[in-house]
């Protein structure tokens, strides 16, 4: 679902980027009002879950690959506004350092995965869970919320892809950017996400939420039923992040490229029959560690190292942001 550069026209990128500015502003204000320094710091760990889930590629019908995002998971832990910021930062790191998702398309990717996904996921969860859900109903609501959130995000991405050949063509009528119309992009994006990726998103959301709610319940602030004290604390959560980071090479087993993420040299072979002019001559970003690889290192080692660098960057960024947050309860009491 990471839209690369040049699949969308610069004007589409600009519109979605500008649309994200007030959303980021609103979310930053809400997070500043609701979360204290400790919780903002924990947001880095939550963002790490999202970053890692996006590295676990799963094979999808049609020979492509997909992945979970974890947006609804963060929304359930710390609120959809926090999820929006966390996934946005994770996407920015993926785009800038690893070349996963476009730089110009960052606004579009954030719109789909950082805004639509967690907000829809949380909305569906609240609608199903009601006010006082029992454990089973809560888990079902989480699963369906995460599943629907990912599916709607995929649908929005498919619409963004599909309107390109309608709006941007050259004099000969050939598409300048993504060549596939809505009749192709919507089923191509939606069916694999409904069949496989959505299920992975739902299962991962429920499993990780339950783990965090048991290990560090003081960090579950968005869902009232999760609040509390006790458990093993943050060390257990950090341990789970470490285990997931070491397991990321499993994501290399899925062969092939995700739909809509082919390079300009690959797209002609996918059935389009030509390389759109906007893609052939478009913007190119030289990522520091392209495709999660390091020159000279085996793929699996490079993948784990990429995960480590990504997690460390996310934790550092949100720890720095926690300096601007309101003091957490014990610190405030001591002051």
């Amino acid at each position, binding site marked *: 679902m990471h839209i690369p550069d040049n699949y969308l026209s610069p004007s589409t990128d600009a519109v979605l980027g500008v649309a994200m500015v007030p959303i980021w502003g609103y979310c930053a204000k809400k997070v500043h009002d609701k979360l204290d*320094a400790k919780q903002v*710091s924990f947001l*880095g760990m939550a963002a790490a879950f999202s970053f890692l889930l996006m590295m676990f590629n799963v094979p999808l019908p049609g020979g492509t690959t997909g992945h979970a995002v974890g947006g609804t998971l963060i929304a359930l832990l710390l609120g959809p506004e926090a999820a929006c910021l966390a996934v946005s930062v994770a996407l920015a790191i993926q785009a800038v350092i690893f070349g996963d998702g476009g730089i110009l398309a960052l606004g579009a990717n954030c719109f789909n995965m950082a805004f639509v996904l967690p907000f829809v996921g949380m909305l569906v969860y609240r609608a199903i869970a009601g006010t006082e859900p029992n454990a089973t109903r809560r888990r079902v609501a989480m699963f369906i919320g995460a599943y629907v959130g990912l599916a709607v995000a995929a649908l929005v991405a498919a619409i963004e892809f599909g309107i390109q050949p309608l709006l941007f063509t050259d004099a000969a009528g050939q598409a300048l950017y993504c060549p596939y119309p809505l009749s192709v992009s919507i089923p191509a994006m939606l069916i694999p996400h409904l069949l496989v990726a959505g299920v992975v998103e739902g299962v991962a959301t429920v499993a990780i939420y339950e783990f965090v709610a048991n290990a560090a319940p003081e960090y579950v602030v968005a869902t009232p039923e999760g609040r509390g004290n006790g458990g093993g604390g943050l060390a257990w959560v950090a341990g789970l992040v470490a285990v997931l980071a070491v397991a990321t090479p499993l994501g290399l087993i899925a062969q092939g490229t995700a739909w809509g993420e082919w390079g300009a040299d690959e797209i002609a072979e996918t059935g389009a029959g030509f390389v759109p002019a906007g893609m052939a001559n478009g913007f190119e970003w030289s990522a*520091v*560690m392209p495709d999660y690889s*390091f*020159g*000279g*290192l085996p793929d699996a080692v490079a993948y784990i*190292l990429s995960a*480590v*660098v990504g*997690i*460390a*960057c996310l*934790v*550092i960024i949100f*720890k*720095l942001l*926690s*300096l601007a947050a309101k003091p957490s309860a014990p610190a405030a009491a001591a002051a």
Partner: protein
Amino acid sequence: MGQRELPQWLTQSAPYDPPTDRDGYLRRNVLRLAQTLEVFRAETPAASSAVDRLLARVPAPLRLLGVVLLVALVAAARNMALVWLVLAVALCLLALRPPQTIRAVLVPALAVALLSALVNLPAALFLGQTEAPLRVATKAFVTLLLVCGLSRSVAAEELLGGFAALGLPPTFTLTLDLAVRDLALLGAEATTLSEALELRSVGHNHSKTASAAGVLGMVFLRAQRHATAQAEAMVLRGYPGASGSRRVRPSVAMLLYLLFLALAVGAFVYLEAAL
């Protein structure tokens, strides 16, 4: 008790509006220099994170040698994969520290990396060596992360205290030790003097350089007084200046640290050979 009336002269207002003066020169130069000297204070930084508590079990001289070795490997590496490896480890250690420490380490590291990139920018613009600014900036960033990380978690006194164990001459160790202690003391005194000068300055000062020279002169005189007192104390106690070497006991943390250094050297050799 009856209420006394204020004397007439005290009731009259005497407005005094001193001409405004900018103290940027004093702040940016003398005060900043004095505060920098205070960094050499001999206190051990609080081990406020799990990673610092673990690293505190590794002898300070070994950590110093380890950082020097890593910096040398990063500087000599032609294969950037090693630089990314060390960067990953340094970022991991940094991520486990408190936000204040992260900021204190990251700000100078980013500033130096940016400066390095800017210095190398002409090579990219005019000679087409587009990778040069990134390589140099990344290496500078990793080096600063390692060095600042060490300086924030180990006191200067601890580092110097272990030099004897490395076989350095006692005179060298003593001189460095005294210098560091006196720098910290003089830094604190210079800060106090500068702050007092700043607080008591009224009106426009046309001779800021003379004021700064006054502060530095006072610091110099006090440095001389400290040195004399130190020498007299050593004579009185019969202390010749030679200190016994500290025995380093091997620990699990120390062995793990040595293993990590060995892995770093191994990775360097492997990656350079693979180039």
